[in-house]
C-alpha cells in the first residue's frame, strides 16, 4: 500500500511534466496545425543554454530564466526561418521539415558538447517526504508540480482573459476572418511558436535533473511520451493534455514500479493503440463532420 501511494505520487509529478510538454505540442497544433516533431530537440537547445548559464553564474534561477527565454528565441527562429517557408501543399511537409530539424539540432549538439551525460543538479532535495510512515513526494517533485500548475494556470488566463489570447485563439480557428478583422495572423503564429517552445523548454528543464542527465538525446523519450499524452487527450484540447499527462504519468509509474522500467515503452504503445483504435482523434477531440 505504501508502495502504491509512493508510485501514485511520483507518477503525478512526472505526469505534470508530460502534461506541460504535451500542452506545448497542443499550443503549436492549435496555432499552426503542425505536430512539431522537433519540439524535444528545440527544448534541449534551451536546456543546454540553461546548463551553461547555471554553470557560469552558479544560480539555478538564472539558468531557468535563461532557458525559458532561450526556448522562446529558438521558437521564433524556427518559425520565422524555417517553418514559415515549408510548402503547404501537403500536410506532411511540415512534419518532414521538423524531422530534418531534429537531425540537425541533435547532431550540432553532439558536435559541440559531445555524447557524454552531464549531470544537472536539482535545486531541491530529491529524497521523499514521509507522511506518517508513507514516503510520498520529494521537495523537488513538489516544486515541479507547483511550477507546472502555475504555468498552466498562467496560460489559461492568457488565453481566456487577455486581448492577446483572444487574437491567438481567433487566428488559430479562423485565420482568414481574423485577418479581415485586423488581427496580425502571421505574428500570432510566431507568438504561438515562441510560447510553445518556451513551455517545452521549461518541461525539459524540470524533467532532466530527475532522469538520466543532459545528453543530445535526453528529450527523445520525453517527446514520445508527451506526444502520446497529447494524442490520448486530443491534439486540440489543453484540458486533454493536462488530464492525459496525469493519466500517462501514473500509468507509467505503476508499470515501471510493478513490472520494471523496460516494460514502460510497451505500456505507452499499448495505451496509444488502444486510445487511437477507440477514438482516432483522442478522448477530448471535437466531433468531426462526416466526410463521405
Amino acid at each position, binding site marked *: 500500500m505504501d508502495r502504491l501511494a509512493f508510485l501514485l505520487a511520483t507518477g503525478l509529478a512526472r505526469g505534470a511534466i508530460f502534461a506541460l510538454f504535451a500542452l506545448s505540442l497542443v499550443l503549436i*497544433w492549435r496555432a499552426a496545425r*503542425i*505536430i512539431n*516533431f522537433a519540439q524535444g530537440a528545440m527544448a534541449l537547445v534551451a536546456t543546454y543554454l540553461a546548463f551553461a548559464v547555471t554553470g557560469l553564474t552558479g544560480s539555478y534561477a538564472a539558468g531557468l530564466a535563461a532557458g525559458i527565454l532561450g526556448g522562446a528565441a529558438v521558437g521564433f527562429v524556427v518559425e520565422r526561418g*524555417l517553418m514559415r*517557408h*515549408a*510548402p503547404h*501543399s*501537403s*500536410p*506532411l*511537409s511540415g*512534419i*518532414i*521539415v521538423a*524531422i*530534418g*530539424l*531534429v*537531425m*540537425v*539540432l*541533435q*547532431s*550540432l549538439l*553532439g*558536435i559541440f558538447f*559531445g*555524447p557524454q551525460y552531464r549531470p544537472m543538479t536539482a535545486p531541491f532535495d530529491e529524497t521523499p517526504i514521509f507522511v506518517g510512515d508513507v514516503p510520498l513526494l520529494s521537495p523537488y517533485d513538489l516544486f515541479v508540480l507547483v511550477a507546472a500548475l502555475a504555468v498552466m494556470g498562467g496560460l489559461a488566463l492568457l488565453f481566456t482573459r487577455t486581448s492577446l489570447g483572444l487574437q491567438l485563439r481567433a487566428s488559430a480557428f479562423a485565420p482568414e476572418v481574423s485577418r479581415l478583422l485586423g488581427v496580425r495572423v502571421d505574428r500570432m503564429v510566431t507568438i504561438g511558436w515562441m510560447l510553445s517552445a518556451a513551455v517545452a523548454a521549461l518541461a525539459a528543464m524540470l524533467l532532466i535533473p530527475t532522469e538520466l542527465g543532459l545528453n543530445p538525446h535526453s528529450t*527523445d*523519450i520525453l517527446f*514520445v511520451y508527451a*506526444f*502520446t499524452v497529447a*494524442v490520448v487527450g486530443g*491534439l486540440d484540447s489543453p484540458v486533454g493534455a493536462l488530464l492525459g499527462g496525469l493519466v500517462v504519468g501514473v500509468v507509467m509509474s505503476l508499470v515501471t514500479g510493478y513490472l520494471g522500467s*523496460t*516494460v*514502460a*515503452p*510497451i505500456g*505507452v*504503445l499499448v495505451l*496509444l*493503440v488502444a486510445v*487511437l*483504435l477507440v477514438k*482516432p*482523434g483522442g478522448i477530448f477531440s471535437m466531433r468531426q463532420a462526416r*466526410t*463521405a
Partner: protein
Amino acid sequence: MTGRRVPRLLPGLTGTRRVLVTAVVLTVLALGGTFLLDPFRNFQLATAAAYLCAVAGLTLLIGLSGQLSLGHAALMAAGGYGYALTSNALTDAGLDGLPRFLASLVAAVVIACLLGLLLGLAAARLRGPYLAGLTLALVIALPAITSVWSPVFRGDQGLQTAYNPVPTALERLIAVEQWQAWVAILVASVVVTALTIVRRGTLGLRMRAVRDDETAARLNGVPARSVKVAAFTVSAAAAGAGGAVLCFITQSVSPGGYTLAFSLLLVVAAIVGGLGSIGGAVIGSMVIVVLPWLLGAGTAALDLPAELEQRLSGNLAVLVFGALLIAVMLLRPDGLAGLAGAWRRRRARRGGSALPRAATTPPAAADSLDPAGVADTSGHSRTIPIER
C-alpha cells in the same frame, strides 16, 4: 525504371511487360557490375540493395498514399527477426542452402506483412500526425519488446544466424561479398519490380486518389480504408524483405541496428530521392549508404584532433542528412528524381535532339500521348508543377 528512354530502345513493349523487361535488363547489368567492385564496395552495394527494398516500400507509402511512417525500421526488424528465427529453426531441422534461404525470406515477408496489416488497420483510421506518432512509438518500444520476450529475441544481444557460403558451382568464380551482393540485388529487383507494377496498376491509382482527396475518392466508389491498409501492408512486406536481406548479409539481427535514427534515415532516403518515384528510391538508398562513408573518409583525411574527429564521426552524417531533408523539402519537394526529370524536359525543349519524336510533336504532348507514359507523368507526387 520510370525512364522514358526505354521506349526508344523497345518501342513495341508497353505496360507490365515493359516493366519486366526493363527489370531484367537492369538486374543483369547490376549483377555484372559487381565484378567491377572490390569486396568492401560489394558489401556496400548489398547493404544499399537491402535498404532499397525498405525505401521503395516507404516511398510508395508516403508518396502515393500520403501516409507517413516513422516506423519502417521496426518493420525491417520484424523481417530480420522472422528471417533469423526461421533460419535457425530450419538449421536445427537439418536444412541448409537455397531452400533454407527462400523459406526464411518468405517467413520474413509474411511476418512483416502481418505487422504491417495491424499497423495499417490502425493507420486507416488516423490522419498524418497521429500515424507518424504511432509508428514512432513502435520504433521506440522495439528494444523493450525484444528484452521483455528475451527467451525468443535474446534482448539487446539479438539473434545470430548460420553462415551462408557461396554455392559450390560459383565458388571459383566469385567471393562471399559478391555472392551476398548478388542475392541482395536479386531480392531487391523482385521487390522493386513488384512495387513498380503495383504503382502503375489499379491499386496505385486508387492510392493517389485517396491521397489527393479522400472524400472525392470515396464518392467515386474507392474503398479508401482498404486502399490505405493495402498500401501499408505492401510497404511493410517490402521492408520485411529488406530486413531479411540485411540479416542474410550480416548474419545477425539486434534491436541496436533498428533505431529511430535508422528509421529517419529511411525517410531521408525516400524524400531526397523523390517521393513516389522508384528511381528516386534507388538514388536515395545509394545516398544513405555512400554519403556517411564519404564523410568519414573526408574527416579522416583532414587530420583533425582526435576528440573533434570522434565527435564528428557519427554526427556529421546526421547533420548533412537533416540539412538535405530540409533543403529538399523547401526547395525541391520532388527530390533528386524530379531534378533528373526537369533536366530531361529542359533538354527536350531546347534542342529536341534528346527525344527523336519531338521533331514531329511538342515534347510535353508526346509524353502525355504515350500510353505508358501517362501513368509515369501523373505518378510522381509532384506537388509543384515543373512545366511552366
